[in-house]
């Protein structure tokens, strides 16, 4: 080993002759990737609070900003993150998990001051001192902490689908459901967007922790039509899902279905009965219409100990869920399960009993403590272009009802469907199945006013319809049905150049020169639906306050008649989950009202 030298260290004296190291006073520029103070783009930020959730140190608070507008349907909360630099450790997990990418760290890193309050900031895009420093650490797609891709689900091939009305999607496998549930960031946007405010974050979390029973319990807090909504819900929740900002929203609907599929019927019945009031209240409520609104209302009231009787004109319960939704989307035995759970709570359903015909509204008023009507929208509207009075021009809703009822339908070899919404898809795809069965070939043309990128129907529905051979012709407005003698031979349409005016109101512009003929033995109109209020009778019709064509109701669903409530599609437009929500509201209102009133003998 070297003994070392006494002189060599003196070489360091050369440093005395070297220039001193000097540094400028102003802060040295930080690296491009630097983790300095936060910046947050308020336009992009949705206030989901995921940054606050991931924060190691609880350094992020979500601050309500009264001036910002809440938009639950778009998944935007009026709050923005505030950062406590007494706690922040600049790990930037908030950046890597942000669903929108609004939050970043800047290259600004100096803040000096005696006032501790200045260390608690509400960052905007300009940064802590409003100096617009460039961004440092910001979102990087290769290190995103969110899984933006949805789990896939098995579904039948189109040719197989066309052979029957069997349900076409398989539902999640347990592995896929677990993976899908694990994607959820628990921001609760879905809860806010859902008309019924379902506890989706809670049931998704329960599924993730492997507790399907708890998931169903959470589901039943707000929705007794979960078999149905697990399959056909319009899922405002998924539109609002934070993950949809940069990726695919959580498949909330399919997770609900998975939860319901995981339990047997007895378990579901038991869960639905948990916490139910066992002592009868002695109050009686009549509900007209066994659809989602009516039966949800019945469910709530029955749970509270009231005696509920539901009057249904048709032979089975479900309303539009049964008579409007084809079975390949919603198998009727699943709907039966939902109905059975409700009936198991003691709800009496009187089928084939048409109020206004078999029993009058006045009788119901006299015999019950309260009456609720939820009769849906079972009459189809017509475009009323020339020729629509031909017998082969039919309403989609009539066609769908006949198929469910098992009425023999004359299956047209060629059919034209007018409409671009889900009902139009239902009609077209039902016809495709009927045609496959009768002729082995699909010849359905669907004409929609909207362009392909603005269809009213779900993208999935459109895709699946196309896969099944339905020809979708976009941007066409109907001009007339072509009648040859008495016989309908097709539909003539013109090009629709634009649909809405600059105020966003409907005002389509047609190009009359661009006409086209769509051959068909039958034209199905699937544009809109209305209610048949004849059950009310002239006196009640005259007595009620109306809001346009619908009875006027208050926010709880109560009409101008104190004994009468109305809910569901007939007052709110068609949507199962809205109807469920309305059923809950009406039930709460009815309960409050009848509990303070004397019992009707």
């Amino acid at each position, binding site marked *: 080993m070297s003994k070392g030298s006494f002189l060599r260290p003196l070489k360091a004296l050369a440093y005395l002759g070297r220039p001193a190291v000097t540094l400028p006073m102003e802060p040295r520029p930080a690296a491009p990737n630097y983790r300095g103070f936060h910046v947050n783009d308020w336009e992009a930020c949705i206030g989901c609070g995921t940054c606050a959730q991931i924060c190691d140190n609880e350094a992020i608070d979500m601050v309500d*900003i*009264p*001036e910002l507008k809440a938009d639950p349907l778009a998944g935007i909360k009026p709050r923005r993150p505030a950062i406590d630099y007494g706690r922040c450790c600049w790990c930037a997990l908030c950046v890597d998990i942000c669903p929108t990418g609004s939050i970043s760290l800047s290259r600004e890193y100096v803040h000096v001051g005696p006032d501790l309050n200045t*260390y608690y900031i509400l960052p905007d895009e300009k940064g802590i001192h409003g100096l617009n420093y460039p961004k440092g650490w910001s979102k990087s797609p290769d290190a995103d902490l969110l899984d933006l891709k949805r789990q896939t689900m098995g579904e039948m091939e189109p040719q197989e689908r066309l052979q029957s009305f069997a349900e076409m999607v398989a539902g999640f496998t347990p592995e896929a459901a677990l993976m899908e549930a694990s994607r959820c960031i628990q921001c609760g946007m879905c809860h806010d967007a859902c008309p019924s405010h379902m506890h989706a974050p809670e049931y998704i979390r329960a599924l993730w922790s492997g507790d399907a029973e708890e998931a169903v319990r959470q589901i039943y807090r707000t929705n007794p039509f979960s078999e149905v909504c697990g399959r056909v819900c319009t899922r405002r929740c998924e539109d609002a899902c934070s993950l949809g900002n940069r990726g695919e929203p959580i498949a909330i609907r399919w997770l609900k279905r998975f939860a319901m599929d995981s339990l047997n019927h007895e378990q579901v019945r038991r869960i639905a009965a948990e916490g139910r009031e066992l002592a009868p209240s002695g109050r009686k409520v009549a509900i007209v219409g066994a659809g989602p609104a009516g039966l949800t209302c019945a469910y709530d009231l029955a749970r509270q100990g009231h005696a509920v009787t539901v009057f249904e004109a048709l032979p089975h319960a479900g309303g539009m869920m049964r008579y409007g939704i084809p079975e390949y989307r919603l198998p009727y035995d699943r709907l039966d399960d939902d109905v059975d759970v409700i009936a198991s709570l003691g709800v009496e359903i009187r089928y084939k009993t048409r109020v206004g015909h078999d029993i009058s509204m006045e009788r119901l008023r006299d015999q019950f403590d309260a009456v609720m009507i939820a009769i849906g929208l079972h009459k189809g509207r017509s475009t009323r272009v020339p020729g629509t009075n031909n017998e082969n021009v039919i309403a989609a809703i009539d066609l769908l009802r006949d198929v469910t009822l098992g009425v023999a339908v004359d299956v047209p070899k060629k059919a034209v469907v007018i409409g671009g919404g889900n009902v139009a898809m239902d009609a077209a795809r039902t016809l495709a199945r009927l045609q496959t069965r009768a002729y082995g070939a699909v010849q359905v043309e669907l004409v929609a006013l909207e362009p392909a990128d603005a269809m009213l129907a779900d993208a999935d529905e459109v895709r699946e319809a196309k896969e099944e051979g339905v020809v979708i012709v976009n941007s066409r407005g109907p001009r007339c049905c072509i009648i040859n003698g008495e016989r309908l031979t097709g539909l003539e349409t013109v090009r629709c150049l634009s649909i809405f005016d600059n105020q966003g109101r409907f005002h389509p512009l047609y190009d009359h020169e661009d006409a086209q003929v769509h051959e068909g033995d039958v034209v199905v109109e699937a544009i809109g639906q209305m209610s048949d209020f004849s059950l009310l009778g002239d006196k009640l019709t005259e007595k009620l306050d109306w809001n346009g064509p619908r009875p006027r109701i208050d926010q709880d669903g109560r009409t101008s008649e104190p004994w009468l409530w109305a809910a569901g599609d007939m007052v709110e437009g068609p949507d199962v989950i809205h109807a469920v929500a309305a059923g809950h509201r009406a039930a709460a209102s009815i309960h409050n009202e009848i509990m303070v009133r004397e019992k009707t003998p």
Partner: protein
Amino acid sequence: MNRELESLDAVFREMPDLKVEHTGPRRTRIQVEADALPTLLELLKGRAGYLHLSAISCVDWPDTEEFELVYHLWSYQVSNLISAHTRIPYDPGRYVSVYDLHAPAVYFERDIHEMFGVWFEGCPDQEPFILTEWQGPPPMRKSFDTVAYVNDTFEWREYQPEWANDPSGGKG
């Protein structure tokens, strides 16, 4: 090398109640009864070259009211790590020290005594090291709730930042 591995097998043959599992490259997990662990360590050291006590870890399992003690032993000769797991009940929460076999054990046993409250018979030093002024229960136990302690002990700082008066900053 092969000779050493054979001797490890010899150890296992001698102690038939061990549950041995190869959990990964150079990793072996052994489940051993508490009264057999010192023997195992002795055999491992004396016969199989497991000289280096890398660590002793303690895990609290309140469900069964047990502490799990894990002895991590490394053999420089065969490059393998054995983690010997054993469990002792909360009550009385005593175990024997392996100090006489592995001197570094004193450091870990002292730490476990301090943080979990396990008493090691024969350990020469179980004085507090970090918690010299601590009156509370052994804090690494699951029953000690850090957040509750912090909330009980410390004040949360309240801020009054300027922006709280106008959170929108004119952006609303």
